[in-house]
Structures are given as structure tokens and as C-alpha cells.
């Protein structure tokens, strides 16, 4: 607990730099990640991250000093070059973008490693720390680094704010943006420049290999919660900063623990949670929706079986037991029983001593399903010229999906028909007549 309060108070200057630095980087990459994800270039960040290394080494070899800004300039040059090459290779050859990314990534990184070892073997005293770029150096952040990170974040925010509408079009529908006369090339260039800037700074927190997580995880997580670009941007930035904060805290409590990997693990957990519990898009929500839909179909099929039994026996006020129902419609007994239970609970059936009996609401619902089924059969045979003995299967599926609006249109189109292609009566309830 003591460690937590000490950490939260940010009273230690070192802790302060690490936390502020990681959060700044997290927000930049959270924002840019949304665009790379939406433009299906999620792994371009990986290529840039690897391509930054030779630039840093070259800048160091040419200048001979380990100055943040000089190295940063080198990083931007080779980073941008990698984006250009990926684009060139996938445009001017049969290679697909993913192969181009993998190729550029490994060759640039190989060049980086070659240069790095050349620097090391030349015995330059100032080189110590260059290889920190490989795995990040969050624990060794300096005030001047923070200024750089802040400047990049400010640049990202300003450009994204003023170009919000244009970038939105580009991200969701490039073809449409082009047809609207937007300068697509320039916009894409702006986005990739911002991505390169973000990656070049971001690898200082998490290192080369893990940089793509910083871009992908928060953006992917936010995609589960909302489809709106503004919402995604805010959520992604918030999640990235939470991940950076917690990751920095964990590595603070255990000395020797690397910050970058912990940030990635925390971000992955956040993404996993989003995947599971997000409304509408999450796995649980989608499982729940599927189940609800399945139950609805089951209940409607049972009601239909009641209607058919009643029709055959001349009265809808009769009670039928499970055996009769199973003869009418084949289904597993467990499913049938659970369907009956929930229908009794919602008041569509009565559980009497002679078996189950339709209530008034139950009869209405049953009538509706049968009506939809038979109207659809009639529609198929009358308007699509499908033979009457081929229409049943299709109607079996569609009867559960037709909305009240569609139902009204069908009724109008068919002119409130009396019977279906098999000469069964199409039933209407009293309420429908009014």
C-alpha cells in the first residue's frame, strides 16, 4: 500500500518522468492507432518501429553524439522511408501489402542491427544506451525526452483536430473521399508522418517489438465499444493512458521489471475484457443475442404447433399434452419443455390438468406466426412464381424475422388474402380487423 501511495503522489522525480512519459506516448499512439486500424494498416506500425533503428544508428554515426533530437530526426527519415517502400512495393509488384510489410521490416531491422554492431565494435564511448531502443528505456526517461513526447502529442492532436472531418472520410471510405475531391494523397501522407512520429517516440517506452501493441491494442479495444470515430479516439486514448499508468506502476513496485512489456500485458487485458463484455459487439453480448433469438424461434414454433393442433381439432380452446405436441412437431423433449415453461411464465399458455392451453395473448401470437408463414408462402408463389410445394421451407425461416412494418406491406401487396397456396385459411385476429 505504501508503494501505491508513494507512486500515486508522483513525489519521486524519476517516477514522475516515467509515468508522464509513458502516458504521453500512450495517448499519441492510442489516437494514431485508431486511424491505422480503421485503414487496415495495423501492422504498418510494426514495420516503422523496426525501420527506425537504422535511422537512429546512422544519425549517431554521422553526428557522433547521443542527442535526443538528432537521433529522432534520423528515426523519422528511415521510418518514413519504410512507409514509402511498403507502398511502392505493393503498388508496383504482385506482392501484397502484408508481404511488403514483413520484407521491409526484417531488412531494415537487419540493417539496424548491422549498424549497431558496427558502432559497438568501433568502441565509441557515447554509444552506451543506443541498444536501449530495442527494448525501450522507460526507466531512464529524461526531462528533455518528455518535452519531445509532449511536442509530438501536441502535433498529433492539433492535426487530427483540424483535419477531423477529412481524416474521418479517408479512414472509413477512401473511394468516397477521393470522389469528393479531397486531397487524399496529402491526407495519407499527413497520417503516415504522424504515425512515424508517434512510433519513433513510442519505441522509447516499449521498444521495437512491442510498439505495434501500443498502436493496435487500445484502438482494437475501443472498436468493440463504439462505431463512432470521436468515441473511438477518446476511448482509445483513455485506455492507452490507463495501460501506460498501470504498466509503469507494476514495473515500479518490482525492481528489474521492464516497463514496456507490462504496459503491453495490461493493454492486452483491457482489450480482452472489451472483447468479452462490450455491449452489442462483445462475445458475451453476441452469445446472449443468439440465445435470445433461438429461444424466440423455439417459442414461436411451439405456438404454431398449438395453432395447427387446434385447427385440426376444430377449436383453439382445447388443451394438448406434450405427446400430442411432439407428434405435431418433432423437437427434443428438453427444449420443448423449457419452451413450454417460459411460454406459461409469460402468459401465452395455461398449464391445466388436461395439458397446455393457449391463452388469449398466446392465441394472438400463434395466429400471427401462422399468418406470416402463410402470407409468405402466398407471396413466393404469386410474385416470384415459385411452385407451391417449394415455398414451405423458406417460410419456416422467414416467419420469425418479419417485422410489423413488413407485415403491413405484405398484407397490402397481397390485398389481405384469404388463403395460402395450399388452400389453408390465413388467420386474422380481431385486433387486426380494426
Amino acid at each position, binding site marked *: 500500500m505504501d508503494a501505491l501511495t508513494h507512486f500515486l503522489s508522483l513525489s519521486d522525480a524519476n517516477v514522475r518522468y516515467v509515468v508522464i512519459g509513458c502516458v504521453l506516448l500512450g495517448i499519441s499512439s492510442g489516437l494514431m492507432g485508431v486511424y491505422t*486500424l480503421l485503414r*487496415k*494498416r*495495423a*501492422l504498418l*506500425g*510494426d514495420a516503422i518501429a523496426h525501420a527506425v533503428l537504422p535511422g537512429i544508428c546512422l544519425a549517431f554515426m554521422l553526428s557522433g553524439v547521443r542527442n535526443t533530437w538528432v537521433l529522432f530526426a534520423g528515426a523519422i527519415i528511415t521510418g518514413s522511408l519504410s512507409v514509402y517502400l511498403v507502398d511502392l*512495393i505493393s503498388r*508496383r*509488384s*504482385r*506482392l*501484397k501489402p*502484408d*508481404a511488403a*510489410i*514483413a*520484407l521491409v*521490416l*526484417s*531488412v*531494415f*531491422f*537487419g*540493417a*539496424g*542491427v*548491422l*549498424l*549497431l*554492431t*558496427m558502432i559497438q*565494435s*568501433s568502441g565509441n564511448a557515447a554509444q552506451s544506451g543506443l*541498444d536501449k531502443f*530495442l*527494448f525501450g528505456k522507460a526507466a531512464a526517461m529524461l526531462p528533455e525526452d518528455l518535452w519531445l513526447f509532449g511536442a509530438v502529442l501536441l502535433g498529433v492532436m492539433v492535426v487530427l483536430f483540424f483535419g477531423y472531418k477529412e481524416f474521418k472520410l479517408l479512414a472509413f471510405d477512401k473511394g468516397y473521399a477521393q470522389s469528393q475531391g479531397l486531397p487524399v494523397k496529402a491526407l495519407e501522407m499527413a497520417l503516415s508522418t504522424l504515425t512515424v512520429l508517434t512510433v519513433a517516440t513510442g519505441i522509447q517506452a516499449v521498444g521495437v*517489438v*512491442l510498439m*505495434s*501493441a501500443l*498502436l*493496435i*491494442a487500445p*484502438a*482494437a479495444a475501443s472498436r468493440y465499444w463504439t462505431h463512432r470515430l470521436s468515441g473511438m479516439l477518446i476511448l482509445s486514448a483513455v485506455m492507452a493512458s490507463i495501460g501506460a499508468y498501470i504498466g509503469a506502476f507494476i514495473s515500479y513496485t518490482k525492481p*528489474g*521489471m*521492464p516497463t*514496456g*512489456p*507490462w504496459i*503491453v*500485458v495490461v493493454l*492486452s487485458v483491457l*482489450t480482452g475484457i472489451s*472483447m468479452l463484455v462490450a455491449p452489442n*459487439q462483445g*462475445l458475451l453480448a453476441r452469445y446472449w443475442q443468439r440465445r435470445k433469438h433461438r429461444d424466440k424461434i423455439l417459442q414461436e414454433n411451439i405456438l404454431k404447433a398449438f395453432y395447427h393442433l387446434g385447427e385440426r381439432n376444430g377449436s383453439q380452446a382445447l388443451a394438448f399434452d406434450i405427446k400430442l405436441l411432439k407428434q405435431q412437431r418433432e423437437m427434443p423433449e428438453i427444449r420443448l419443455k423449457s419452451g413450454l415453461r417460459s411460454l406459461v411464465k409469460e402468459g401465452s399458455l395455461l398449464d391445466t390438468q388436461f395439458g397446455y392451453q393457449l391463452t388469449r395473448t398466446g392465441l394472438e401470437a400463434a395466429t400471427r406466426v401462422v399468418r406470416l408463414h402463410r402470407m409468405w408462402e402466398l407471396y413466393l408463389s404469386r410474385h416470384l412464381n415459385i411452385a407451391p410445394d417449394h415455398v414451405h421451407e423458406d417460410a419456416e425461416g422467414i416467419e420469425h424475422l418479419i417485422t410489423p412494418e413488413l407485415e403491413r406491406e405484405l398484407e397490402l401487396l397481397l390485398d389481405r388474402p384469404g388463403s395460402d397456396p395450399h388452400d389453408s385459411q390465413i388467420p386474422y385476429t380481431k385486433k387486426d380487423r380494426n
Partner: protein
Amino acid sequence: MDAFWIILTGALVALNGALLGSFLLLRRMSLVGDAISHAVLPGIVVAYLFTASLTSPFLLLGAALTGLAATWIIETLNQKAKLQHDAAIGLTFTLLFAIGVILVASYTGQIDLDMDCVLYGEIAYVPLDTITLASGLDLGPKQVWTLGSLFIGLLGLLLVGYRGLSLTTFDAGYAAALGINTSFWHYALMAAVSLSTVAAFESVGAILVVAFLVGPAATAFLLTRDLKWMLVIASLAGILSAITGYYLALWLDGSISGAMAVMTGVIFAVAFVWQMWRGR
């Protein structure tokens, strides 16, 4: 003699990479190969914790299983959680790699596993670690034997499974209609990629593995449309990169694996310019 062993090691990694990489490229899975090569790290670390040896067969097995698990996670995220494919790849391999780094950091006392070594290997040390028989006969470096047997295994797989592999690569639907088990060949390929990554990582590191998986295959892809020729050209391009890379490193006094990776890029660039010039 050392130069010969180093180049031979590089060439064997190149051959394995060229053969597997050609199929990966045609299946649009080049990035999955990249992901696997990073994702095997936690498997290596865990297996190492149990066996305390970097050459044990359990290490190969553990890492290969992690590689397979990684491809399975990618597929699941993509199909069940509806995550777009590139994002699924990026999330999976970074998480696994991060776990690997954390494991290394937690057991620093017990693991003599240099993180730099995982990334770019130490091919220069290959000739030092040799197999010597009881009679004193030196059989050559252990790595050459491991990679060599893997290469023979791969050739065997290709001879036996050429039809299955190529059919599932070019037309999965047709292959399935013929009764070929597409997911078997998918996972067989992934297992081979994981195995060859792990076998090579100690000597050349993850980076050169990826470079050899992608570079030679991409070069061959530009030069031919025939799968058999693609495999041949990719193998030649790989061997050429290994040889020229070695001398580049010697000349510049730098990392040998780094230089070999650069040479795969240079050879690709030549092929790329040639096909652009021809296409004009």
C-alpha cells in the same frame, strides 16, 4: 573452416526459410511467420526453466507448441471475436513476446538467456559448439546438424505432402472438395515454421529467420509464376544472401545475421527493379 561453417549455417536457415516462406507468401501469411518467430519466446523460456539447457529437444517442442498456440489464437480472435486479421496478429505476438520478456526478467538469476541474442543471434559462435565423438572425431557444429536434419525433414514433408500443400494453398475450396484436410496442412505448415524458427533462433535470431522467411520467397515470387521454380529460385536467393551477407559483415565488421538480412533485401531490390523495368 569457421567461415565455411558459418555460411553453411546461414544457408541452411535460408533453405528452410525459402521453402516454408514460399508457401506462407502464397497463402498471404508472411506476417504470421513474423508473428510466430516472436511468439515462441515464452515457450523457449518456460521450456528452458524446466530443462536448464538451450539444446534440449523439449525446448524445440515447447517453442513449437507456443508457435502453434499463437496461430490458433490469431484464428480465434479473427473468427470468433471478429477482430480484423492484421490486428489479431499484432495483438497476439506482442502479448506473447511481452510475457516472454517478463519471464526472462523474473528469472534473471536462473536464465542465461540474452535478450539481444534472441533478436539477432550469435552466428559467429556456431563453429565453437561442436559435436565430438568418444573417439575424438569432430563432427562439426551442433547447429549445423540440427538445422540440417530439419532441412531434410522439410524436404521429406514437401515430397510427401506437395499435392496437399500446394492444393490447399492455391484453392482451399477445391482442395476441400477433393477430400483434402485443409486445416491439417495449415497447422502442419505452422508447426514447421515454429520448429524452424526455434531451431534457428539461437544462431541467427528472430530477425534473420523472418528475413529468410520473406525475402527469398518474395524475390522468387516476382520472377516466376510456377510453384516449383519459385521454391528453387527462393532457395538459390537465400543461399546467395547467406554467402554475400557473410562477406559484407566481414568487410564492415558488424553482425553477420544483420548483414545476411540486408542482403536478402538487396537481392529483392534487384529483382524488383528488374521486374519494373521489364514491365514498362
